[in-house]
């Protein structure tokens, strides 16, 4: 039975559920379980739930080692930028081991980190930096946009035999949504059509999904039917669902909080140009963050980010072009 809980509550519920069903799941990281009353510590004990020093290389490296030794660690990293302190372990250790050993070693671990905290956190804590991880072979990347997906993707992340980067969006933390109780698993590599439509395909991730849905609602009042797709995982990336939608609409707008050249949208645009060029009736339009470090001050922060108006504008732009009507 589903009931409304918060996005962060859903993530915690998934970790709790997976720790209950599998004794090899561990949960450690910074600033967790420092008091006796901590719910995870109370439920699972100090063998499986531990606070670590502020040592990202050791935390992530230990997760790699514990995974190689048969456990399934979930590392609490707080902020995605903290991964940057430990890039060798994130990129060049965990994801490489299975291949380098000819399949002898598996590294099932979850790196849990928040991202996109564009709420006055200025230059170093606001990034949507998944673009630098989604192209790492061996590493999977999940970007849930709803509470239900957050729970289901975390369950899949923990059960996956590969390293998974689970990025939760800070601005969605307290958003509530219907979340199934008990077992709820959302498979990786399956995009979700958040709103069906026929005129324009909009692909959005994370916090951009509610922005895209709001834009779709606004456009519907003008009789424009927008389909909104959330890939949910960007590695693996469900291109068939996106191409199927483009085959129907012929028009594609990609919405991404990341900077343009570090975005998922750039990758999707490339794939659609490669695999689905003949389906397009207008050029692909990308609505991304502008290529700059996010400023602290609110008007400047808002200026560089995609928003509802920019999405609406992009949809209208692609509707104003029709390649079929353009002389060759």
């Amino acid at each position, binding site marked *: 039975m589903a009931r409304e809980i918060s996005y962060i509550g859903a993530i915690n519920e998934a970790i709790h559920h997976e720790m209950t069903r599998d004794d090899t799941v561990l949960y450690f990281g910074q600033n967790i379980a420092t008091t006796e009353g901590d719910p995870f510590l109370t439920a699972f004990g100090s063998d499986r739930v531990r606070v670590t020093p502020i040592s990202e290389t*050791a935390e992530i*490296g*230990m997760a790699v080692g514990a995974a*190689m*030794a048969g456990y399934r*660690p979930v590392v609490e990293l707080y902020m995605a930028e903290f991964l940057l302190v430990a890039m060798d372990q994130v990129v060049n*250790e965990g994801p490489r081991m*299975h291949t*380098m050993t*000819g399949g002898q070693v598996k590294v099932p671990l979850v790196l849990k980190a928040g991202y996109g905290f564009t709420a006055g956190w200025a230059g170093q804590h606001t990034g949507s930096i998944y673009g630098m991880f989604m192209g790492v072979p061996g590493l999977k990347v999940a970007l849930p946009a709803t509470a239900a997906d957050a729970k289901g993707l975390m369950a899949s992340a923990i059960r996956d035999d590969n390293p998974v980067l689970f990025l939760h969006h800070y601005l969605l933390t307290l958003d509530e949504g219907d979340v199934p109780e008990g077992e709820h698993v959302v498979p990786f590599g399956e995009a979700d059509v958040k709103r069906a439509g026929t005129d324009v395909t909009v692909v959005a991730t994370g916090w951009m999904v509610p922005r895209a849905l709001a834009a779709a609602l606004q456009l519907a009042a003008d009789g424009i039917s927008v389909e909104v797709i959330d890939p949910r995982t960007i590695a693996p990336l469900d291109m068939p669902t996106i191409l199927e939608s483009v085959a129907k609409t012929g028009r594609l707008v990609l919405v991404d909080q990341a900077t343009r050249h570090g975005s998922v949208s750039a990758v999707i645009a490339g794939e659609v140009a490669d695999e689905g060029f003949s389906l397009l009736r207008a050029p692909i339009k990308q609505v991304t963050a502008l290529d700059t470090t996010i400023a602290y001050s609110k008007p400047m922060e808002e200026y560089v980010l995609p928003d509802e108006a920019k999405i609406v504008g992009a949809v209208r732009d692609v509707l104003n072009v029709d390649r079929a009507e353009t002389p060759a």
Partner: protein
Amino acid sequence: MTDPDWTKGLDNDRLVWMFTQMTRIREFEERVKRTFTDHPGVIRGHTHLADGAEASIVGSLTAAKPGDQYLATYRCHGYPLALGTDPRAMMAEIYGKTTGLCKGYGGSMHLADPERGFIGTSGIVAQNIPQATGAAYAAQIRGAGQVVLCFFGDGASKQGAFHESLNIASLWKLPIVFVMENNNYNVVTRTDQEDANAAAGEPLSVKAAAFSMPGVTVDGGDPLAVYGEVRSAVARARSGAGPTLVESKVYRLSAHGNIIAPPGVPLHFPEHEAVEVFGDAEEYEAAKLGDPVPRFRGTLVTGGVLSAQDADGVAEAARTEMQEAVTFGLDSPFPPPETALDYAYA
């Protein structure tokens, strides 16, 4: 042999086993090195040899028992040989063949044999240290009495990964022994050029004090001395008292690795850096006089553990075994190209 306890309580079979493993490692490494001249082009990329470190490797592993686990660096040929890995599979891996230990996906720097506890290696300096610490955390909560031995070089102790890991290992009293093989060179940089302790004339084991764990320095050319220190450290780890840093002073007898060269330039092993870079032939010749393999042979023969004839037999058997490894590696097929994606994901 005035010390009545010179065997450290090891029986003759175990002592001969140690000598045999040291001899096998040396022979294997010499055959890897010879491949560069005998069969140019067969070994690609970068290869690092453990010759000179045999006593340290075997002395350390003698202190372990089945079920213990090991993580090492790119200089990783010695450990699996002593743990029982088939040298034919190892040589085939180094030759990039489908019969290799890692089916040709890893090569010289990334050997792994999890069935024998050798759960992984990292080609990036110091990055196996947190991984070994994580394996030790796993061992601690599994509660089966396992100990992890983590092998790395002196250069690794300049990395944050080393300091972060030793802090947590000591804080959590993890069952791990950190074995630093100090060969006094980080590629072509001498230790006293990059290490504050070394520059101050202190052993590198003093770093352990910063993490409230014991630190000892031992002659890494003497397998029994290494065994004695690692045995104590393993016992401490197994008892739940926590980690130890063992600095094992070794002298690698080959250069850091084969030359780094663009395609078209035949790969080979240059002279050791003492000679090639610093022009210090005396240092290198002195090190060769202390070569741990003949040194241990002398110890065993003098101590009446092994006859000279038997020692020759051990060497002859190793030569035959490693020749077979070379032949097997050369004769084995390459992997089908399209299998390149087989293990991209588990």
